């Protein structure tokens, strides 16, 4: 079947992809710059076509707990928000991770801290990858760099969430959420009516009751559960690392950037190569699991690595751990909702890596 081509905003692509992925429920609350997701779903009325529930909750906290409930029933449920709203959802997210339930969370990041600005930023990297909530847990974090990936990662995110029974976060930003690009949409999937064996959908006579909880009052039991989680995260680290390389083969200087910054750096690589500087770009697509192994391999070949982010320097810490002291690792970034220019990146490469 031929895929459908449309011109869409990143946020609209998420909403359309959710309907087409056969999602059972969306629970959200409006916040710039992600409001178009809820607006698009409300206008599309998928409850009349696929039977997908779309509900504007009374708050972000209510929305994430509706997701918790839906996920406990084995349903394909999701929520979306932007930075301050995602902070409100953190308690729910750690409970969902603790209860080992699948769900999809989209964060269209804006400048922070606090209410910050409504323009794009990448300052929620720590919150997304290191666990914004409490306890030893991880989300699987996908970082789209185009409207196409905004759409594709919805289906991929649900697949990963159900495969590992773990919440998945799509860490986007205001630029990708708001920009319009062409996008190939995958053909619509039917919603699944299958009752999953662990779902709390009523106890039949044939098995014991299912219990969904994140509570264990016995510390020994909790430690065993923590070890089970670690084993799951290790399996994810082994199997699910995704990244993209751009002119890395003969690179002497390496940019590491994701999302909007990666698009900027692609141009920076071309500009640098025009000046005779052999630059390359590694774009992590999964931020957890992080492509540490590949960065470690590349750090034996290059003279220096620069992490380019729209933040004060967050992913740079993971790049440093991956490079493990083999080469200098520096950071460059703009903050507060300002997107770096390709020229600025090249200038800072020279200043911070080549001249020092």
């Amino acid at each position: 079947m031929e895929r459908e081509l449309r011109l869409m905003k990143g946020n609209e692509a998420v909403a359309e992809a959710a309907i087409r992925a056969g999602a059972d429920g969306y629970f959200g609350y409006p916040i710039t710059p992600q409001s178009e997701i809820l607006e698009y779903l409300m206008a599309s009325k998928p409850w009349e076509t696929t039977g997908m529930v779309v509900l504007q909750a009374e708050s972000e906290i209510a929305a994430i707990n509706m997701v918790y409930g839906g996920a406990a029933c084995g349903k394909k449920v999701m929520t979306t928000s932007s930075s301050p709203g995602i902070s409100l959802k953190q308690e729910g997210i750690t409970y969902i991770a603790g209860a080992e339930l699948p769900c999809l969370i989209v964060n269209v990041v804006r400048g922070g801290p606090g209410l910050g600005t409504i323009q794009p930023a990448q300052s929620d990297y720590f919150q997304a990858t290191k666990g914004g909530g409490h306890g030893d847990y991880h989300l699987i974090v996908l970082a789209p760099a185009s409207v196409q990936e905004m759409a594709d990662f919805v289906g991929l995110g649900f697949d990963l969430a159900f495969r590992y029974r773990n919440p998945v976060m799509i860490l986007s930003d205001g630029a990708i959420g708001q920009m319009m690009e062409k996008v190939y949409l995958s053909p619509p999937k039917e919603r699944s009516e299958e009752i999953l064996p662990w779902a709390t959908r009523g106890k039949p006579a044939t098995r014991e009751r299912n219990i969904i909880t994140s509570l264990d009052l016995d510390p020994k039991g909790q430690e065993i559960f923590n070890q089970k989680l670690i084993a799951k995260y290790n399996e994810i680290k082994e199997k699910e690392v995704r990244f993209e390389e751009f002119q890395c083969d003969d690179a002497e200087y390496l940019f590491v950037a994701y999302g909007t910054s990666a698009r900027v750096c692609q141009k920076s690589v071309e500009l640098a190569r025009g000046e005779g500087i052999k630059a390359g770009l590694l774009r992590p697509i999964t931020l957890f699991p992080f492509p540490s192994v590949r960065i470690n391999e590349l750090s034996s070949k290059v003279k220096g690595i620069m992490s380019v982010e729209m933040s004060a320097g967050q992913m740079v810490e993971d790049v440093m751990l991956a490079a493990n002291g083999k080469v200098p690792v520096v950071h460059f970034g703009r903050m507060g909702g300002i997107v770096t220019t390709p020229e600025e990146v090249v200038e800072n490469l020279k200043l911070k890596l080549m001249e020092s």
Partner: protein
Amino acid sequence: MAKVKGSIVVNIERCKGCEICMISCPTGTIAMAKEVNSKGYNYAWPANPDLCIGCANCAIVCPDGVITVYRTKI
């Protein structure tokens, strides 16, 4: 050749304040408003309407099709 005067109409609610139109305007007609729309964006507006020559650069570059350009001969 008859002189052309232009004017623009901005769909304020659809504008996300990316400022591309402001940069593309050759006469400095467009500026970003100090006020914000319902989503919180400082929207584009014709701050100096008398300068508009109706070139439609702003409408062409606008990623969201927010701007409509009208031309009149004078």
